[in-house]
């Protein structure tokens, strides 16, 4: 049976279709503020109805990229195409994009109702239609009974909903979300993430979200662009980003991972063909089943996620490959998972995570225990960048 990467959220992948026309295209975009380059010669396609995330640490240029699409900043070089049309020089108030601001930017002197109606009023829609649309929006975000309140009479979560309703009221072609859930607590954030996904499917809009929260990006997106220092490091689906990161940076940024530096000892196949690669990581012999991206003696990194590493006090049958022995140095109990930090004889630390599938354990592993860590051939991957 053919293996694939992770669960598929929905049958939607226009980016794999070479004939698909991108809805939004950033074409060789560079943005400089004085001597600082915020976005560096970046090209990116986003498709219609896609839920797309820009993910990266603060200062990586993700917000600048979004603000250029909204029209608050003009690119220094390059152009932005929306449905094939260059939108450079078009002021924000004439762009078919709407943005949900990180601070929500609700108008404090207007009621919830008025806030939501604001964008519609700018289009000079008839009063009746505005009222219907506002009501529709209030219902959508479940704030019907708060219509007459002012923003300062609402809780953080309610304000966030008003901001969302206001940005959706005009039915924009693209909804931009700038760290939309940053101010909410974890429970509410998770709930809202699923609501956002629901909304996006229901309304059939294109969503572009900026976030530094990788879990949020993974949950909501069809595709994620991981950014660093104004560059895009990888654009892929959440499962690909997690299971097949293309570089040490992406692997390390998304989730928890063990990275062991090493050299290629033997490749079982030609470049680009599937096979088994053997790597020597300073005394640890590692074998990986993967499409080969390196040749013998290349400096590479071996990366394996902690949850794919098995921890056991018993010696495995084969200790010559994909197995290390060490002392339990620290344990992080997370409830659903326990993370074990195992210190090898040479001082390197390898992490293993174990799902706490039963409430009671026969032989619990504790501090100071000597344990074996093993992982199968297809658990890890070789990173060449």
């Amino acid at each position, binding site marked *: 049976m053919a293996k694939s990467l992770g669960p598929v959220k929905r049958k939607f992948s226009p980016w794999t279709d070479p004939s698909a026309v991108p809805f939004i295209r950033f074409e060789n975009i560079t943005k400089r503020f004085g001597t600082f380059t915020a976005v560096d010669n970046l090209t990116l396609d986003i498709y219609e109805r896609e839920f797309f995330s820009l993910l990266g640490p603060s200062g990586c240029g993700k917000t600048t990229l979004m603000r250029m699409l909204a029209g608050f900043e003009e690119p220094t070089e390059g152009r932005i195409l929306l449905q094939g049309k260059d939108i450079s020089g078009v002021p924000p108030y004439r762009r078919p994009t709407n943005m949900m601001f990180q601070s929500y930017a609700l108008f*404090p002197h207007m009621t919830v109702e008025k806030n939501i109606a604001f964008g519609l009023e700018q289009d000079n829609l008839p009063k009746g239609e505005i009222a219907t649309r506002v009501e529709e929006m209030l219902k959508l975000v479940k704030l019907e009974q708060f219509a007459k309140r002012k923003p300062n009479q609402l809780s953080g979560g309610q304000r966030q909903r008003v901001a969302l309703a206001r940005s959706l009221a005009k039915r924009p072609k693209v909804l931009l979300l700038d760290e939309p859930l940053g101010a909410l607590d974890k429970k509410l954030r998770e709930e809202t993430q699923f609501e956002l996904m629901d909304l996006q499917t229901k309304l059939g809009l294109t969503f572009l979200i900026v976030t530094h929260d990788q879990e949020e990006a993974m949950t909501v997106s069809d595709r994620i662009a991981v950014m660093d220092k104004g560059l895009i490091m990888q654009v892929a689906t959440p499962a690909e980003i997690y299971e097949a990161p293309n570089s040490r940076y992406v692997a390390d940024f998304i989730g928890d991972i063990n990275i062991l530096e090493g050299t290629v000892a033997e490749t079982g196949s030609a470049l680009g063909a599937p096979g088994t690669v053997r790597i020597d990581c300073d005394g640890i012999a590692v074998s990986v089943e993967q499409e080969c991206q390196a040749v013998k003696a290349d400096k590479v990194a071996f990366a394996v996620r902690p949850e794919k590493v098995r921890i056991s006090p018993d010696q495995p049958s084969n200790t010559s490959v994909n197995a290390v022995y060490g002392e339990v140095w620290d344990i992080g109990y997370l409830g659903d998972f326990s993370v074990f930090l195992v210190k090898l004889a040479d001082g390197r630390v390898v992490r293993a995570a174990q799902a706490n599938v039963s409430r009671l354990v026969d032989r619990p592993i504790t501090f100071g225990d000597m344990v074996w860590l093993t992982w199968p051939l297809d658990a890890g991957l070789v990173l060449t960048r």
Partner: protein
Amino acid sequence: MASVSETHPANKPNPARWLVVAVPYVWLLLFFAAPFLIIFKISLSETAIAMPPYTPLFDGFGAIGDFVSELDFDNYLFLTDDPLYIEAYLSSLRIAVISTFLLLLIGYPMALAMARAPTMLRPTLVMLVILPFWTSFLIRVYAWIGILKPDGLLTLLFQSVGLLGADDQVQIFRTDYAVFIGIVYSYLPFMILPLYSALEKMDNTLLEAASDLGCPPWKAFWKITFPLSLPGVIAGSMICFIPITGEFVIPDLLGGADTLMIGKTLWTEFFGNRDWPLASAVAVILLIMLVVPIMIFQNQQKKVT
């Protein structure tokens, strides 16, 4: 407040606390309430050729009966008889309203420009607005005489650039125009500072949000910026309007014989006619007239805080 102080142990009344609270009240009592009562008392007496120039109204506690029977509202009735006073009041209000409007018209753009200036530049700009206070108010008004008088600097300037012939002169001095110029000049900082503080607090992303929702900048000003600066507009207007109504120095120095302002009338009654009781009555009415805008002002301040 009372219920809080009862329930919270830290809020139990203690003497030191009362002392601190009492200071402003004692201050107001000594320097506002007491003088006002004295003025009010004088306004109810009659002119006399004496030192001070009015009949004593209250001679010890034995004469309370006399006191009440001698209470005299003639001065107030006289104010309504002579159209001069009513005209002076109305003229003062007119000048105050027009000046306040002019101040808003000039002050708002300046305050807005200051609030939108780069953060580093703002303290300097505020400094520049306050700078005129370093010179005496009187000297600055006298300086305007030098500028506005017929053979003054303005005439010289206009003559030198050819706007005026060699024999023509600017005829502004001793007119209402000169009064407006003087008032607007003197009160501008009091208008700019509250406006600036209101505008500076405004979140710039609100304007971005408005623009994002399809609102062009000039429209966003009236929909977002102006409504949000209303507390500043009201504060600035009140701070200017109230003292302008009673203004005496500027109309006296720059205004003409026909510039009618209640402050000037008041001065004439006190020092020209030595009719202290009537002058006091004028002052009492002026104060009552200004209580209304002061109440509006305080009500607005309460809403803001």
